[in-house]
């Protein structure tokens, strides 16, 4: 009996995800975005194994070189290899984006599920969400990174401290859209028959949320997650660009761009390369999110 039911759910689920995948594949932009994103990920993750140059090694004799065999993308004003720096920077930028997105998403889902499921806290949590939406986020991010950077750096070391700070401030200021989305979804789910059925066989609240609510809000959360990575990467690079992000010798894409901007008239490529890396990543993530949204939407999928 149990075997039959699990098999049945498996086949229906796989056919639904097959549908989603088919729709996703027909979205040309999303496919191109996924390809480019995959390439960037491979380059950033596997690159340092193939390209054994230390991104922080200073060679004063090889300053400001153009592309050559030893340095395919040239060197910067301290003779550091640009290719290695771009790969190292990409690792940091993508990690910040991912972790900040995970944080903001779990916060948003928590608030959204609580607000949607427990009527007693709904009003309070939604007012809180509205309040956060009315906060001037970029100025607050800047202020927070000014105030907490040095204490945290003293506590955990410059790099780890800044990493935690940036991930936390981005996560704490970007959960609101996910929360609203999840709340709306939970509110409609609550009216469905299968929830009533689960309630009538005496499912407890914790189990109900875990078993029936969370899996069903997954798809809107997934779309919001991809878009969240994109905006977290942009925010991190903006902070670095304003000089309030990571310390100078620690490469991230935003920091590389910021460091190169003084010499933009002479070496414009050094600004353009990290900029293109950020833009391509964000663009492809956004396209993937767009494709996912279309694929998850049953109204569009039918057509």
């Amino acid at each position: 009996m149990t075997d039959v039911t699990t098999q049945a759910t498996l086949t229906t689920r796989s056919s639904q995800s097959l549908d989603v995948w088919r729709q996703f594949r027909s979205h040309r932009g999303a496919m191109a975005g996924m390809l480019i994103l995959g390439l960037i990920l491979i380059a950033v993750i596997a690159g340092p194994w193939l390209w054994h140059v230390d991104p922080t090694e200073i060679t004063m004799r090889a300053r400001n070189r153009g592309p050559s065999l030893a340095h395919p993308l040239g060197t910067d004003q301290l003779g550091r290899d640009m290719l290695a720096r771009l790969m190292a920077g990409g690792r940091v930028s993508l990690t910040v984006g991912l972790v900040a997105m995970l944080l903001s998403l779990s916060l948003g889902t928590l608030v959204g599920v609580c607000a949607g499921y427990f009527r007693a806290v709904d009003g309070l949590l939604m007012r809180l969400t509205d309040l956060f939406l009315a906060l001037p986020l970029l100025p607050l991010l800047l202020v927070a990174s000014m105030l907490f950077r040095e204490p945290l750096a003293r506590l955990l070391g410059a790099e780890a401290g800044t990493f935690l700070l940036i991930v936390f401030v981005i996560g704490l200021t970007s959960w609101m859209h996910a929360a609203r989305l999840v709340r709306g979804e939970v509110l409609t789910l609550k009216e469905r028959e299968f929830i009533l059925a689960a309630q009538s066989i005496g499912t407890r609240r914790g189990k109900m949320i875990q078993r029936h609510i969370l899996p069903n809000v997954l798809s809107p959360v997934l779309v919001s997650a991809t878009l969240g990575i994109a905006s977290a990467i942009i925010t991190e690079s903006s902070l670095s660009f304003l000089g309030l992000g990571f310390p100078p010798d620690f490469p991230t894409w935003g920091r590389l761009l910021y460091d190169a901007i003084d010499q933009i008239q002479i070496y414009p490529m050094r600004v353009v390369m990290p900029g293109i890396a950020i833009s391509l990543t964000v663009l492809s993530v956004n396209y993937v999110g767009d494709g996912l949204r279309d694929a998850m939407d049953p109204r569009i999928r039918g057509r």
Partner: protein
Amino acid sequence: MFHYTIRRLVVAVPTLLLISLIIFLLLGLAPGDPMAQLPLTIPPEVKEKMRLSLGLGDPLMTRYALWLKQFFWIEPLHVIDALFGLDLSGDSQRIVSWQSRAPVADIIAQRLPQTLWVVGVAYLVGTAIALPIGIISAYKQYSWFDQIGTLISMIGFSVPTFFTGVVLIVLFSVALPWFPSLYDTTLQVTDWQSFLAQLRQMVLPVMVLALYNASQIGRFMRASVLDNLREDYVRTARAKGLTEKVVVLIHVLRNSMIPVVTVIGMGVPQIFGGAIITEQVFKVNGIGELLISSIQANDLPMVQTLTFIFAVLIVLFNLITDILYGILDPRIRYD
């Protein structure tokens, strides 16, 4: 409509108060020391006196109440005095910048026009570009115009403003010396020549911000027009024999503008955030640049006031959007 407006206003006031409290607590409880920048040769007891004279010895709530009084009562009085040549405020204590020892309001008043000029023009240009492109894209869905428009709006939406700014500088002021890369804020518009110079230096920053806005608003406009084109009333209008022009530009446009107005209104605060970065790229001395420089100088009263002004702008434009939405869509009012 009157009741609806009043209700919105009543919500806005506690929101602003709470935001001001959050900003105040964030700055007040932060572990940073405002005296950290002073030279080490100053003896500790003098330093302590300086702390007391800045009011840092008082309890937090007293300082908050004092700041509220200064921001909402004394500073407006000074503004009224300056405008009408009165003397209502007397010699009450104003919010003073720690960096320049000048009243915060005076410095902001000097900086605000530049920001408003650049941001305002960019927003108008962006909206003026976005609306027709959104309508044409939706009307001719999947045509080459739509494909290119969608691609460009995706790019404009994804590429961070600091990078578009830098690329425009490389293209149009380094490679082709058409526009200046720096914004000359000492320029006075007195005659035709200086007016042209002002226009030329505004082109690049305005282009950066306008591209970002146009792509965002354009995407929403396209989606909204697409939704409306499928409605029954469009078929009815066509069946009555109305021309396509009337159907699209009068019936569909008016209905699709309802959600887009919200997006336009909600985007205003965002563009002020974008202006912080754009001002840094082009060295416009607006309030965004002022915020960054006072953050770097640990100038807490200035940072506090500026952040709160950003919050006021956000709440104000949310309010305007809500009210406009109520005017446009009667269903909202009777909620």
